């Protein structure tokens, strides 16, 4: 068996066109992702980390304590989300607002106010900022009046609250929005094992290739041949996926999670599901090679699309509208497993994802084995 494994391994890794699609193409795609939006500018994806909101600040009355506090608050926000334009006259600011060059105008006075021209996301954020300031200011005023000795503690508590809510995610890890594309890419790369599987199963199909006929008339059991092919393909594909993950993490600097064991486990199951899909498509249907390849393209790109490879938010939309699709779409399950591992640290959901993938593999292999058992063809 080792003998057959060795030669099949050599044969497949020397098939440069197959290896290009299985290894080089996902790496190229990852590099393009990185250059397009991962590194140069995330704005290109429509999933911008944050666009600074352009505002003008008109100082009507800076003598009061509250006005100075609000000015200081806006100064703090300027570093995080506001792009305060250099406009001091109200008329100029209103013109700019009408021209949609600004999202809003803050007025610094005893009772701070905001003028916006329309009701969009940025305008709502500006309103929230003002409301947040007013609530906190009211709270401080109340504390100052009732328990002035506790005012320093209240300020400190608010400071702590800000740090906690703004810097720390649920799992204590930063949620970089562009990571989802790389999760989907790895999921796509895993599924692209289908091409290796289909191509290899052709070598066992007497009705499609002369090699298939030659291998079908040997005394080696057909299931043995399929299992050897599958093992070889799995080893090759698993290493391909590991190389891709190494490239993404070490070369592109995108973190796919800190738990190496879990990452290996997802890669393992991902490679397995890709190869099993390929073997199933290759063995089950008595279709032409062209038809099988078309199905393979469909089975990689469509699940990839649904998992967010082309449009990052697609998986979330499906989760809201029809979550069952995300449960049976291997790319979405893989992507979810990456999320659970890398972002959420949700062991239960992670285990569920792996079990779903394992179940899919078993089903696909059963179908494939039933398909090739005692196979005889109508025509060759």
């Amino acid at each position: 068996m080792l003998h057959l494994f060795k030669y099949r391994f050599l044969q497949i890794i020397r098939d440069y066109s197959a290896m290009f699609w299985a290894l080089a193409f996902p790496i190229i795609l990852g590099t393009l992702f990185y250059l397009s939006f991962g590194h140069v500018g995330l704005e290109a994806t429509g999933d911008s980390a944050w666009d600074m909101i352009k505002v003008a600040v008109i100082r009507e009355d800076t003598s009061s304590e509250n006005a100075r506090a609000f000015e200081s608050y806006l100064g703090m926000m300027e570093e995080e989300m506001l792009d305060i334009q250099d406009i001091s006259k109200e008329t100029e600011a209103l013109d700019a607002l009408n021209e949609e060059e600004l999202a809003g105008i803050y007025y610094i006075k005893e009772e701070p106010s905001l003028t916006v021209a329309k009701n969009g996301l940025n305008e709502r954020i500006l309103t929230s900022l003002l409301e947040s300031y007013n609530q906190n200011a009211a709270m401080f005023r109340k504390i100052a009046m009732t328990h002035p000795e506790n005012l320093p503690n209240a300020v400190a508590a608010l400071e702590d609250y800000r740090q906690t809510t703004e810097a720390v995610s649920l799992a204590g890890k930063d949620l970089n929005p562009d990571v989802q594309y790389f999760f989907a890419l790895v999921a796509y790369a895993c599924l692209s094992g289908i091409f290796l599987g289909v191509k290899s199963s052709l070598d066992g199909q007497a009705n499609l290739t002369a090699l298939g006929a030659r291998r079908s008339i040997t005394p080696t059991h057909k299931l043995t041949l399929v299992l050897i092919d599958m093992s070889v393909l799995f080893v090759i594909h698993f290493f391909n996926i590991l190389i891709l993950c190494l490239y993404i993490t070490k070369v592109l600097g995108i973190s796919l999670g800190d738990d190496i064991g879990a990452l290996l486990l997802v890669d393992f199951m991902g490679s397995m599901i890709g190869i099993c899909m390929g073997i199933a498509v290759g063995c089950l249907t008595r279709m032409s090679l062209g038809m099988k390849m078309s199905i393979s393209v469909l089975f990689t790109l469509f699940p990839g699309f649904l998992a967010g490879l082309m449009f990052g938010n697609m998986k979330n939309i499906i989760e809201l509208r029809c979550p069952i699709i995300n449960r049976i779409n291997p790319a979405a399950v893989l992507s979810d497993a990456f999320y659970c591992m890398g972002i959420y640290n949700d062991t239960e959901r992670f285990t569920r994802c792996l079990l779903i993938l394992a179940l899919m593999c078993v089903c696909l292999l059963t179908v494939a084995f039933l398909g090739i058992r005692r196979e005889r063809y109508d025509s060759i």
Partner: protein
Amino acid sequence: MSSSDMIRIENLVKRYQDLVALDHLTLSIQEGEIFGLLGPNGSGKTTAINCLLALLKYDKGSITVFGRNMQPDSYDIKKQIGVVMQNVAVFEQMSVQENIDYFCGLYIRDKAKRQSLVEEAIAFTGLTDYRKMRPKKLSGGLLRRLNIACGIVHKPRLIIMDEPTVAVDPQSRNKILEGIVELNRQGSTIIYTSHYMEEVEQICSRIAIIDHGRVLATGTTEELKQMIKTGETITIEAIQLDNTLLAAIRDLPHVFDLAYEDRILKIRLSTARHNLVRILNFLKERDISFGRVFSELPTLNDVFLEITGKELRD
């Protein structure tokens, strides 16, 4: 049919929708033979082989090999069969030696035995100097030899060769044919399909002529030739032969068919003494000038022509 038949095919029917590819094909092959399946392209030779190997479903009939029914999972039978496919079936990504070793490994588990068999097959097919080369670098003839090496490397008891010399130059073809005879000498029974009658005539001990999926005749070359009327074919280059003259020639004793085309007169006669002299005297008496003259004993092509009414290569 005899109980000692190595292969017995009875009343095999295979249809592709309305097309009947095998029409109650019946054959028996004995151990030690080089059995030729002769027929034009599309006559059903390859279909018969694929049914025999349990690759193709068939509609009716039975196939026994080594006395047992042949099924897709008849691994004990398959172990003793080697097949040289019509199309070259090797891995492009592996060298000559790796290919032979791989296919040998599908039959033989023991490493030492396998290595020795691979070396023998490489030497037998004359591929020693090419063992490290990939198939893409080999000429057509060498590629065919590699195809043969992959099929016979495990020294099978029965070798099935489906048109192994298609698109091979004459020199390589002769080497392949010599190799087949040698394999038979070493003890393998061989089924050889071809539409090249010269090859079949040269190497086969028994021949079945197939057309439209039916066996039209079976026997040794001599037996087949004796089945037909043609004992001799005389070809003469002659000009100005009119219909009256041609009718007169047709009326000569032992002549049963003639054709005149492009100044070539072809006369088919039954076996008799002095056929050629009689024809030439007839032409001289009528002062008809003629050029080259050939007299040929019947060939398999004549057998095929008489049995099917068409040339083998039509």
